[in-house]
């Protein structure tokens, strides 16, 4: 309307039959449509990091904060090279961002990566639906799609199970450095994890999600980091098998999907949550110090508390709000994992000390090994 430009109308469909009409401000698709699991994130800042977090693979992301794109897109704040969300849903996007680092607008960015986006949506209504009914399949389509067509698509399309395969690197990657050598198994890692390790002088070798114990041993790492990633941890049985073996050999830290895989490897169970945790304000209580931290989270699955009794894992941290597991550690091995994102980005930096703890765990282990050798 402004500047004589006519906005293209488009629609968002939910599997429960709800439909929203809005305007397209991302990838222009007049015939196709985009399918994914509709989720919401409550962070008020950080859309760039969130959109480029590989854990959102296959999902249509709703931002609950109504104004998005205010500070544009910077060169630095990417968590991966390529955003993998299937769509972005907002109330309003900003055409004229303002920030000294801004290189381009949210809209241009989405177009560049062919991501559909819809604005003008009552995202609070959408969020309340998801909160009450759980995350569900959804579709962003052009305006002309009929309800029957949309419902047919939604009914007959299944959510994928190969998320990790899609986002994980195919061949190993090496980041030179002078400090400890960490093998990071990539289930869809966020760049900030790498940044945190590099800042601590770690040499990082990133291996594909299906790396075998033999592959890993080849690099003689000081420690293993299981990265975050998208989807259901049970969809990556090969990784679970690998972790079972290597946890006996190396100190290990797991983050998010890495945490779930670590738990599964130790005999625990995971389940799909109703609408998950996505945001930057989740309080996590450390059971040993009884301190609470604010954490950045993004997960739709969680480790089942009851299932831990069968394992050698102990709960170290819980979510203050719903008492779900936020961290576990192995009772005998130098291995631990957390459900949230200590690397933050987007979100609070309260728990970045976990990287230091991981490195000191490795040091202690080395020292002990030295004694036993």
């Amino acid at each position, binding site marked *: 309307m*402004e500047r004589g430009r006519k906005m293209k109308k488009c629609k968002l469909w939910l599997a429960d039959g709800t439909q929203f009409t809005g305007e397209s401000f991302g990838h222009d698709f007049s015939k196709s449509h985009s399918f994914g699991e509709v989720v919401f994130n*409550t962070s008020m800042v950080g859309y760039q990091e969130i959109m480029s977090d590989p854990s959102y693979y296959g999902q249509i992301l709703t931002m609950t904060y109504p104004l998005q794109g205010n500070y544009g897109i910077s060169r630095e*704040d990417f968590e991966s090279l390529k955003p993998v969300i299937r769509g972005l849903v907002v109330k309003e996007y900003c055409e004229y961002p303002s920030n000294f680092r801004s290189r381009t607008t949210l809209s241009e960015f989405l177009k560049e990566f062919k991501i559909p986006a819809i604005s003008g949506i009552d995202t609070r209504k959408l969020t309340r639906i998801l*909160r009450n009914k759980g995350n569900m399949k959804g579709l962003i389509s052009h305006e002309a799609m009929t309800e029957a067509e949309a419902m047919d698509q939604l009914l007959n399309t299944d959510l994928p199970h190969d998320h990790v395969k899609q986002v994980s690197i195919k061949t190993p990657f090496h980041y030179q450095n002078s400090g400890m050598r960490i093998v990071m198994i990539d289930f869809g890692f966020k760049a900030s994890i790498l940044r945190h390790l590099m800042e601590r002088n770690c040499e990082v070798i990133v291996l594909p999600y299906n790396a075998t114990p033999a592959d890993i041993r080849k690099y003689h790492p000081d420690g293993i980091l299981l990265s975050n990633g998208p989807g259901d941890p049970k969809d990556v049985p090969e990784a679970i098998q690998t972790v079972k073996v290597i946890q006996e050999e190396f100190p290990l830290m797991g983050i998010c999907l890495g945490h779930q895989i670590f738990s599964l490897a130790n005999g625990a169970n995971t389940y799909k949550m109703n609408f998950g945790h996505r945001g930057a304000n989740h309080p996590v209580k450390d059971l040993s110090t009884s301190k609470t931290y604010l954490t950045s989270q993004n997960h739709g699955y969680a480790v089942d508390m009851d299932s831990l009794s069968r394992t050698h894992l102990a709960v170290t941290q819980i979510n*203050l*709000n719903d008492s779900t597991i936020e961290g576990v550690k192995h009772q005998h091995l130098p291995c631990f994992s957390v459900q949230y994102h200590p690397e933050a980005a987007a979100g609070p930096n309260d728990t970045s000390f976990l990287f230091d703890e991981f490195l000191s765990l490795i040091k202690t282990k080395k020292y002990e090994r030295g004694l036993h050798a």
Partner: protein
Amino acid sequence: MPKNNEIKRVLVIGSGPIVIGQAAEFDYAGTQAIRALKDEGLEVVLVNSNPATIMTDQEMCDRVYMEPLTVDFLEKILYRERPDGILPTLGGQTALNLAVELAEKGILKKLGIKLLGTNLETIKRAEDRALFKELLSELGEPVIDSIIAHTWEEAQQFCQKIGLPLIIRPAFTLGGTGGGIASTAEEFHTIVHSGLKASPISQCLIEKSIAGFKEIEYEIMRDAKDNCIVICNMENIDPVGVHTGDSIVVAPSQTLSDREYQMLRDSSLKIIRALKIEGGCNVQFALDPSSFQYYVIEVNPRVSRSSALASKATGYPIAKIASLIAIGYGLDEIKNPVTKKTYACFEPALDYIVTKIPRWPFDKFNQGNRRLGTQMKATGEVMGLGRTLEESLMKAARSLEIGTYHLELKDYKNVPYRSFLERLKKPDDERLFLVMEAFRQGMSINDMHELTKIDRFFLQKLNNIIKVENTLKEATLTTELLKKSKSMGFTDRKIAELTNRTEEEVFLHRSAENIFPVYKMVDTCAAEFLSETPYYYSSYEEENEIIQTNREKVIVLGSGPIRIGQGIEFDYATVHAIQALKEAGYEAIIINNNPETVSTDFNISDRLYFEPLNVEDVMHVIREEEKFGKLKGVIVQFGGQTAINLAKPLSQKGVTILGTKLEDIDRAEDRKRFEELLESLNIKRPEGRTVTSGEEALAASKCLGFPVIVRPSYVLGGRAMKVVHDEETLLTYMIEAVKVNPEYPVLIDRYILGKEVEVDALCDGENVFIPGIMEHIEKAGVHSGDSIAVYPPQNINIETQNALIKTTMALAKGLNTKGLINIQYVLLENQVYVLEVNPRASRTVPFLSKVTKIPMAKIATKLMLGKNLIELGLYHGYHPEEDLISVKVPVFSFAKLVDVDTALGPEMKSTGEVIGSEITFAKALYKGLLAAGIKLPSAGTILVTISDKHKTEMIPLLKSFRRLGFKFMATEGTASFMRDHGLMVENVNKIHQGTPHILDAIKEGKANIVINTLSNGDSVASDGFKMRRAAVENGVVCLTSLDTAHALVSALESISFGIYNLGEEIDETYSAHS
């Protein structure tokens, strides 16, 4: 950590009278905190000298002391109460400073009383600018180049080294008193001197000016376990250089990326941890718009105006949580009172935008200096919530009640923007509107950014509004365009104006297309968790979230932003109305837009609509409420002029107004109809005329005789009102001060120099109950809100009192009052004249309710619901007078308002009030004056300059001062008159006679009291004006009414002894009230 069980009795210190920089937000915080402590089973004792607060209601605490907030009085109370702890973080700077003094004097230690929330060291490290800088350096946080200066020489040296512009900020002062930004050597000289003087410890921080940076605030909390959270961050639209209290502020921040957001979050948490604050804290940052460079501006280790705003913006009750932390709880142990499921240890997520706009008093003080800077000048603020920034901003703008329903001021319409470029650069209270006007005329965003330094993001948003205005003007009004304009906050009225339609037509179009707002909940968590907070805002969205019931309900309209003339008193009455509705079994619904107040605490009512008090917005709420259950009606009696003004448009739309009928409200407010009423009841009022020209005015004055009192008919609240003594001034007034045109005539009344009296009454239509009569100390001509008032009356004879009672009853009945009525009288020669009738709750309701123990607003509410006085246990008559004598003393904020004349007159100037209660009038008055912060010297020199008409009257007064040991200093005329009457006096030069003159005497501390009465046509250039300003700026008591001076003498007499030399002739016994 669970609750500390050693703490059983807590003493809470309130913030005292409302002044600029310390207002209703502390009643909100205090009330919330006290409720939380009581719920925890603690015994709560409160000290606060401000009777117009909910927190000082008897039911709130175990014991309430409405005593002066001074160390002496607190010490007495502490000895008597022996509390286990004292909570000083809820009463603003006042309470914090008192706590420091109490601790430093060793009183707390001696009595074994703990300082809760924050310890002495923390307060000092945060408040002392030098210690704070030290702390920042230790933490490795960036600090701006600065020095701490105690003398002019130190300041000058620094200036030579760093260069201008520099900012001067005095230590331990309120709202930036005495500080400012200096760009020239001259400014530097002036500001440094006033700053050193303003600081109680003669200390100023002088630092490099970083005006133009983004100003960002973080509201954070910490518990004793070291859990720390951010409640809310806020971004000032006005960059650094304008005090946050005077800035337009949005929440959350809009232009920060996650990196910047987290960087400042980390810094705030680091600081609160280092300070070891247990409770709430506010950190202000300056952030370079073109790098990651930031600076910490200051920290407030307590709840503040910003924390009240953050609480209302997020729904997170900071004061409540802070007090639970103070008594030992951890954040992880306290349930989030909004969701009732999650915990207080989390960071609220907003899914709407909040805009705060300050409300300034320049509509009253049009001669005042409107420039905004580092000293706060606003008296109040409004808040708007929306799903778009434009919507929230427009809602806030039309909540201001400055005669606009859009981001537009008629006065600047089509005024070429080139003519106000300077005002864009150097902001004043109207900048937002000037920016809009310049955009309307096509100024570019870049040019605007260069001038104002306002972030382009915000300028874009403002310009979006202009774009829609233009589209509305040019294009046809499609449903889509209508929807879009509504979602950007346009009113029907504005759309109608832009599209050449009537408002009705726009509304019909909307109704046909079903374009109505829905109501969204403020729930702290962006809908992630289920909550049932009854706190709503409107928006043009799809889903409505109102949780409706089928109960019968009543809507109460609040009083909007706090301004001079309509202060916290009206919120007090509003809250009582809500409480009464609940007691009576109704669902109590409130509409209000003021984030500082108790009435907008979502715990107070059954449903809170945070909305503009504008007809359209109110009608939307009514429409919503009529969907379910029965809406009995709307109450307009408690929200001051704001609410009463809505009575007419609402009734025209078929809304039931409870209580006194519109017809009768109109009879009280319409001058002509009011005169008819008085005539029919045979009641006198000062004779008056309505005139439209200079000639008519002169003719009228001939009939009435000078002095006369004049005012334009179109403004309420005593604005532009003046006492005029001669023809020349009258003509000037007619020409200059008022745009005389037939549409807005000027009212001229005979000025009756008599005793002013105020009566509030309750009426059920039949019977009239009068809780009390208040006598004013200053004669009529000083606005009732600025007069010292006493209950019960001290100098009114029984006949006159009976006449007052009779007249009040006749008027109350004559107006078919249902609820409250307030009548102002002037008494002269045993005659009773009516000055004004307010068919609503008045400013005196809280004071009178407290001193008479009659809950006036609650009773009024029940009367409106249909009960009668007898059923409520009252009767037709005058409530027996109490034994205790209570004095209400007004408090002014002149120190903050540069170039505002302090002389009292018919225009109200005070911002707050205090109470002093005692067994004699003189003692009560003394207490009241102390509580008002008037430093009463028990001896010293009085500087006297008095206009001729008052000279005879002043002699006995001055003799009384002499008897108390005071000496005098006076300008020529006054001095010789005094000598003629046997008073010794030292001459002092008028300003034109050269230094040392009167101003020097004040600045150098030679005069301890100034008595100056207004001569005719006193202008800003006059000696009198300069002298009064000098007194304010130097903290010298300045009396502009001889009546106040009389009262002061009697107060001083009650506490001091005279001194006489042998054989001295004793002055005739002085009586202040003969």
